[in-house]
């Protein structure tokens, strides 16, 4: 659980980055390195759910293939099934790009499904759109 603190303020939007790949997390942190975001990161499902419960992030960028008992689809379902957390916007970011994978993402209530490799700039705009930011 590493939070990046640039500007300590409540107005900042909480964004949780979940990916077992350090390089990908670094890429996402670099992309979202703006004052309006407060970033959290997790490298497995258990860690991610802990942060969700504690911080109730506005947006969760969620990998699917992860080590551990739960994969991204299952994590998404837990978040969306829980009334406390189901307002969180979940963006699945994964190398799985088969039609059945995308279908599975819809079924667990993900708000967006982004396949790797992805455009960091486009992802940033998508996040801002979800947060109704210009």
């Amino acid at each position: 659980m590493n939070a990046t603190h640039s500007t300590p303020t409540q107005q900042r939007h909480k964004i949780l980055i979940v990916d077992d790949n350090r390089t990908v997390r670094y890429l996402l942190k670099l992309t979202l390195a703006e004052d309006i975001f407060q970033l959290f990161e997790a490298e497995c499902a258990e860690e991610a759910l802990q942060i969700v419960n504690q911080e109730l992030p506005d947006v969760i960028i969620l990998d699917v293939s992860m080590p551990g008992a739960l994969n991204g689809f299952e994590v998404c379902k837990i978040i969306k099934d829980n009334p406390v957390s189901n307002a969180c916007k979940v963006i699945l970011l994964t190398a799985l790009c088969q039609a059945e994978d995308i279908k599975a993402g819809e079924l667990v209530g993900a708000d967006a499904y982004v396949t790797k490799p992805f455009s960091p700039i486009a992802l940033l705009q998508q996040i801002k759109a979800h947060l109704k930011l210009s």
Partner: protein
Amino acid sequence: MIDTSKPNSVTDHAKESSAWLSLATESASEHPWLDLFNHMAAIVFRLDHANCICAVNSNWALYTARDPASVIGQAFTQFIPATEHERLNFSADTPYLHQSISLMGANSLITRFALHALRETDGLFGILTPLSSPAATMAPTQNQCLHWVQNLSEIIFHLGADYTLRYINPAWQTLTGYSPEASLGTAFMTIVHPEDRRQLETLFSAANFPLRQEIRLQSANSAWLWMSMRINAVQLDTEYYLVGTLQDITEHKQLEIALRKNEERYAILAASTTDGIWDWNLLTQEVYFSPRWKSMLGYAEHELDNTFYSWRDRVHPDDLALALQEVQKCIQGETEIYENIHRLKHRAGHWVWIFDRGTVQKDAHDNPIRMVGSHSDLTLLKQAEEAAQKREQELQAIFSVLPDGIVLISAQGTINNSNPAFSHLTGLHREALLDLSEADLHQALYQRCNPEQQNRHKKKDGNLQFFLDLTHLSATPAEQQPPADLSNPNPPLNYRVLACSESALAIPGFAKLLCFRDITSEYTINQLKSRFLSTAAHELRTPMASVFGFSELLLSRQFDQATTTEILQTIHNQSASLVNMINQLLDLARIEAKAGMEFNFVLQPIKPIVATVVRGFIVSGDQRTVKFSKSRIDAWANLDEEKIQQVLTNVLSNAFKYSPNGGDINLKLARRQNSAGKAEVGVIIADQGIGMTETQLQHVFERFWRAESFKNIPGTGLGMSLVKEIMDIHQGSIEISSQYGKGTVVSLWFTEESAPL
């Protein structure tokens, strides 16, 4: 006519001698009234003192049909029936006799007379007055004759000199159908068969009577009747008559003709070229063999004796007992027809298949005397039958050993047969399937299917696929196990995939053939390939995401120098990882596709290869070197040098990578005997790194598999797959032992070969 001719002759004779006969022993002077006596209707006779006839008038002949001259000197009593002797009192003291008496004539002709006799000094004088006239005496006889003639079943006829019918009895109409009115006065010859007529006319003109001839007469309904004719010529007064009888022998004649035809047929049979005929005299043991019988066995007619043994000694030993038994049964009357198929030895040494048939003939006392039969050569038939049997056996064998399951559906739509492979593949046994319908069969198969796969039965081409759940099948023999995973020996599959195709059969009684092919291997490989491809694509996407993402950030934003350098370094590392991954994928693909064909095996010592790799092995940023223990082992093996270098490089790289906290990397050579007693040489590489858990160790050869604890160590998950593949093609083995947190030991074993001299 013979029967009636004698009375006629007597009558003729009597008529001829109608005048008084003068008796030689009596002079007319002694009996001046003898002439008178001769004209009386009575018999006048004289007996001497011994009661012998010394004179008799000619009337004697009239009543007795005996020549009066022949009876002179004969005892009178011998012409009297014995029953009347007592009543006849011829004693000398009886002066006068007056009584009735019977007189026996020729042909048992008996006539009753009244006897008046006077005793004389030296004999007896008597007069026999018939109690009926001579005509009346004859009348019953003639009537009798007429009666007989009228009732005879034979025809009696008289022909005039011109062969016209003068007399016919009723049998004529009965037999020929012609009425007497229509026939009397007509020429007899007109109804005689033309062929017989000429012969008959010749015989008649030769006048060689009596004669006997078989002739054909045309009956009133135009049928030809066979008649046995006896005919004689009789002279009455001055005229000649032909008197004859006709006996109907048509039935007998037809039988005779039929018999003759049989004989002709027999003769034709005996001469025929297809069957051999034998005719065995059971009393003499002599056998007639037809020429064909002998030629069937390769002998000329004179080359085989006509004895029973010519046959018996040539019967195949395996067939003889039964053949003899059948013959015996027929002779003893247990069977009407003898039939047996046996082999006879041909002169050339081979066996000829014979169908032997025969019947027994018996004498009047029902004793078997003769046996007749035929031989048919069945060799060609038998050969065809044997060929068909052999072919059927072959087909049955193929049917039994076919790896594909076969089910035959009859024309009625029921299961007629299934082969062992089908039972083996499905666990459904033949006995339980017979007479089930095809739908029943499908139902039985569905019950054995994995329910999750139910919707996948129907394929696009219309053929069915069955995903059998093997956990329900008792027997799953080892050889039927699907091939191992491309990278790792998986646990045995718990399913079997059968593809069912059907073919119409052009065999009477059969509708179609269902073929169940085990496509588990193909199915599994396809599944693996598709999974491999998606995994490969997935694994390539992750480093690609970094390259793509970071470069986009660099292009769209300004970063300080340090960040820029870090980003570029990341892009470089990820690109290197991509290149590495692609290379290893290509290596794997190439090895698999060519199945080791591109390997260049050379018998060589292993140590120089190891030394070369170790010498040049440096990992950037790592100060360590491989510690190669000095070894005296100079083992040779068949190796592809380049591939072994790749194996050693991969294993050594892992040793360095997964021991980030240092520790020695040791390499040594070793020798051992494997379980089969073969000498092996091993390369053993040990590190003191992070090691693997038992579970992790199980996945080490899976493609793209990477332990969670290795996540921060770059890798493709393909290195050990490649090592395994290369070792397999070398027919070597790879053993890994590892302790989590302590380190890993990888042993590569090769079959040791003796060094060339």
